[in-house]
């Protein structure tokens, strides 16, 4: 448990805020896919901590980035934070994405909505280890596509929008890159229907696929058993046995 200091809190659009946190001491080691349980305040409607995925870790500046979608009272309160505010976090929690088994370096990272958040850090780590990440990011429209310049530092970026205002029109699973190039591993995070569709595509292309799941969560440390997902080995906690799962371990109907 650490008290982090807010360095900046910037609205990227009406729905998303990017919060950069730091600490007087070196931040702990954090992997891509892991998350933070953020304590918001003591207001009655923000009683529990908020699980937020790690968007990026800037080691030079000793900063942890959280990309937060404003969905309720807790996230809206976070958007009001000012530089210098203190933010109490449990971190890092959960497991991480895993490296591909083969040496073949080409991998595809698919993010949708706020699910693009962990893909930035994972892309950066993959590139640093000699892999070639390609990003495929989906959103409703151009204004919902975030951090495109940051992603571009680590690999080619393809996009889809539902209204066609950026990239190809449609859903990520319809993007032409899936037919043009071959990848040895797919990683995805986003709304569950999107992840299920991605898992189905990966299954068809016989490419291993890891998904980063979310669930309503209380403790974040595997104690309360509230955040379970159905797996072939029974209920597993998203907070400690996830949030990253290989789709072949999940009991998803469409697979």
């Amino acid at each position, binding site marked *: *448990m650490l008290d982090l200091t807010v360095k900046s809190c910037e609205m990227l659009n009406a729905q998303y805020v990017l919060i950069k946190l730091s600490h007087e001491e070196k931040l702990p080691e954090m992997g891509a896919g892991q998350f933070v349980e953020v304590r918001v305040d003591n207001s009655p409607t923000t*009683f529990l901590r908020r699980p937020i995925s790690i968007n990026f870790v800037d080691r030079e500046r000793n900063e942890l980035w959280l990309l937060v979608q404003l969905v309720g009272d807790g996230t809206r309160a976070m958007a009001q934070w000012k530089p210098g505010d203190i933010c109490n976090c449990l971190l890092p929690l959960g497991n991480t994405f895993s490296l591909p088994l083969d040496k073949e370096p080409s991998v595809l990272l698919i993010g949708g909505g706020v699910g693009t958040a962990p893909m930035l850090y994972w892309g950066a780590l993959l590139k640093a280890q000699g892999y070639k990440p390609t990003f495929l990011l989906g959103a409703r429209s151009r204004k919902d596509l975030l951090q495109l310049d940051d992603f571009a530092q680590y690999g080619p970026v393809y996009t889809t929008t539902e209204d066609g205002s950026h990239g190809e029109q449609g859903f990520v699973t319809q993007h032409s890159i899936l037919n043009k190039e071959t990848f040895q591993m797919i990683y995805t995070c986003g709304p569950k229907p999107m992840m299920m569709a991605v898992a189905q595509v990966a299954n068809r292309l016989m490419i291993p696929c890891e998904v980063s799941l979310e669930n309503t969560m*209380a403790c974040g*440390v595997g104690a*309360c*058993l*509230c955040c379970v997902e159905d797996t072939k080995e029974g*209920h597993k906690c998203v907070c400690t046995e996830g949030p990253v799962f290989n789709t072949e371990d999940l009991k998803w109907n469409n697979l």
Partner: protein
Amino acid sequence: MTGINTKVNIGGLELKNPVMTASGTFGYGPEFADFMDLSRIGGIIVKGTTLHHREGNPYPRMAETPSGMLNAVGLQNKGVQYFADHIYPEIKDIDSHIIVNVSGSQIDDYVKTAEIINELDQIPAIELNISCPNVKEGGMAFGVTTKGASEVVKAVRKVYNKTMIVKLSPNVTDITEIARAVEASGADSVSLINTLLGMAIDAEKRKPILSTVTGGLSGPAVKPVALRMVWQVAQAVGVPVVGLGGIMNGRDAIEFMLAGASAIELGTANFIDPTVCVRVADEIEDYMKRHGFSDVNDLIGALEL
């Protein structure tokens, strides 16, 4: 700490301080070892354990509510034999009392589970859960009538010879009559309250939030109800009362002790502050110093009317 006694006795079990963890909120203990020294806790009540493996309820299992939360976990656990073979060896040497919360859907399940726990040397007590609102059969059904409560307590008493705490349901008309019935049937202590049956609805989707529709409410939202029930039960029975329900800090814990609790359990608070057990133990001592108490037992039932 010199000059201050924080030891309390729960039906024959001496605790180094009155702070325990509520079942289902602390895993088996090691989940929290990164955050605090587990030996600072008076007692660790581990996850509800049943005779057979239970997958628990489908998700969603949790809904945040004002100053609290609803859960519908449904006693997910791997069964008592798995506990005895695989978990017990990992936790038995923790320098605190490890207490197993025992649940079941039939009296025979409770009995068989308690028998197996009885053989584990370093488990000095059980908490008999006759109050889980999240299972279809058994659980709370035993805890809402004096007959059901008496039958299960009597049956377990025959096979279990260490400290037996019985966890009571608040979802009853008169909790004192249940408390008296379990005392007369051989309980060494009663703990209360388990969660209050509640419900949450997503108006946008016109659907219940929990997969089970209803679930158990915990957190500060239930504290006044819990405090009232602890007060009533402490008047009604002679055995020590363990108080729980929405305790978030030392002041809350003191309130439960003043109402008559000999010890307290911290539950939902562990999710907000994983160091809360140690903090509450410290805050109880701070309170004692500020008010000139040298023995924590002098706080029990010390409410001035």
